[in-house]
C-alpha cells in the first residue's frame, strides 16, 4: 500500500507526518518528492546514499543539414523554437522534451542530447529505505525526477510513504496517481481550510480514498474541522500545537522515537489507517 501525504500549501507538516509515519511503521520506503525543497534527510539522516542524475532530452541542430524549412518551429506546441538569421534558435527552459522536432525534421538535422535537471538519492535508515528527489535550481519542472522515484517504488515491491510537493499541481497529481490512500495535512485556520479544499477536490478527481490529519490543532472551534464535519471527511489524527514537539522537530528529531505521547498518537492513526484500507 502506497500512502501519499499532501497538502494545499507548504508548511502544514507533510514532511513531519510522512517521516513519523514511516518511522513508526518501519519496513517502508520514505520517498521525499518535494523536489523543489526536499528536507526529509534532515530527519532520517540516511546512510549509504547513492545519487543518480536525472536527464531530459533536448534537441541539438546540425546547421549544415538545416535548410530553414521551419517545420520544427511550426510543430513545436510549446514554442521552444524560433528560426532567425538563417539559424534555428532553441529555448531549453520552454522545451517539454517531447521529441517532436527530431521526428518532424525532413533533413534529419535534429538529434537529441541529455540535459541534467536534478538527482534522485537513495539510501537506508534504521528501519526504512530512503528516497529523495532534488531539482536543480532554475529548472522549471520536477516531473522527470518524480517519475523516476515512482518507478523505483513500483519496482521495489515495498510499501511507500510518499511525501508530496505542496499544492495541487502536475507534480502532486503524478504522486497521487500512484497512491492507494491519501493523507491530507491541514491547519485549523481559514487559510488552511481553503487550501485543504483544493486538495480534497484533487483527490476526489482521482477517486482516491483519503483522510485528514489536522496539524497545530487546538481545542478552539475552527473552520477546518467544521468543513470536515460538513463533508463527512474522516479525521485520522489531530496533532496538538505543542512547544516541546515543535522544538524537537525543529532540531531534526523524529518525534515518534523520542516522545511517547506522539508515538501513541501515530500508532492509533496507523491502526485506523490499516482498518480503512483493510490490511
Amino acid at each position, binding site marked *: 500500500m502506497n500512502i501519499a501525504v499532501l497538502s494545499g500549501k507548504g508548511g502544514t507538516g507533510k514532511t513531519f507526518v510522512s517521516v513519523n509515519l514511516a518511522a513508526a511503521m518501519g519496513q517502508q520506503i520514505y520517498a521525499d518528492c518535494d523536489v523543489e525543497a526536499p528536507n526529509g534527510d534532515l530527519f532520517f539522516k540516511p546512510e549509504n546514499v547513492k545519487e543518480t542524475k536525472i536527464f531530459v532530452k533536448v534537441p541539438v541542430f546540425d546547421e549544415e543539414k538545416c535548410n530553414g524549412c521551419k517545420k520544427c518551429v511550426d510543430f513545436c506546441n510549446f514554442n521552444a523554437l524560433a528560426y*532567425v538569421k538563417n539559424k534555428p534558435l532553441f529555448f531549453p527552459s520552454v522545451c517539454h522534451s517531447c521529441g517532436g522536432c527530431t521526428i518532424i525534421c525532413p533533413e534529419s538535422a535534429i538529434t537529441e542530447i541529455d540535459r541534467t535537471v536534478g538527482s534522485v538519492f537513495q539510501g537506508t535508515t534504521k528501519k526504512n529505505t530512503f528516497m529523495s528527489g532534488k531539482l536543480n535550481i532554475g529548472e522549471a519542472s520536477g516531473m522527470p525526477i518524480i517519475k523516476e522515484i515512482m518507478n523505483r517504488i513500483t519496482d521495489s515491491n515495498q510499501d511507500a510513504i510518499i511525501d508530496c510537493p505542496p499544492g495541487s499541481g502536475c507534480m502532486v497529481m503524478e504522486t497521487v496517481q500512484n497512491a492507494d490512500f491519501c493523507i491530507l495535512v491541514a491547519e485549523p485556520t481559514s487559510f488552511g481550510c481553503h487550501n485543504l479544499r483544493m486538495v480534497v477536490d484533487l483527490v476526489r478527481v482521482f477517486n482516491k480514498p483519503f483522510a485528514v490529519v489536522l496539524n497545530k490543532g487546538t481545542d478552539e472551534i475552527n473552520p477546518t474541522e467544521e468543513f470536515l464535519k460538513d463533508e463527512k471527511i474522516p479525521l485520522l489524527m489531530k496533532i496538538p500545537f505543542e512547544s516541546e514537539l515543535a522544538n524537537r522537530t525543529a532540531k531534526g528529531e523524529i518525534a515518534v522515537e523520542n516522545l511517547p505521547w506522539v508515538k501513541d498518537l501515530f500508532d492509533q492513526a496507523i491502526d485506523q489507517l490499516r482498518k480503512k484500507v483493510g490490511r
Partner: protein
Amino acid sequence: MIVAVPVYDDDKTICVSFGRSPEFLFMDTETKEKTYLKNPAADAPGGAGIKAAQFVVDNKAKALLTPRCGENAANVLEGGEVILYKTTSTDTDGELKKFANGELEALSNFHAGFHGKQPN
C-alpha cells in the same frame, strides 16, 4: 522600413503585452500603409513571446514599438535584427509619430517572464 506595434483589436490602442497582444500593426514607413494581422501566439499555452517575435521577424519588421518585452522574445528579435523602442502611451498614432520624429527611446529592460506573477 516596416515597423510593428502590438495592438488591441480596436486597431488603435497599444497592447500592454507583447507576446499575447491580440493583433500586430505593421506599418511601412515609406508608403504609410498599415496592415493589421492577428497574433498567432495570442492564445499559446506557453512560449507566446517567442512565437510572437518569430511572427514579427517573418513579417520583415525592422523596428518594434512596445511598452515591454521578455528575454526570450528579445533574443529572437535581436536575431532578426529588429530594433526595439519603448512606448510610453497606449496611443498607436501618437507613438508612431514620436518614432518618426526620433523621439522614442530604445527598450533596454527585458523581463524574465511573469508566469503567474502580476506585472508592475
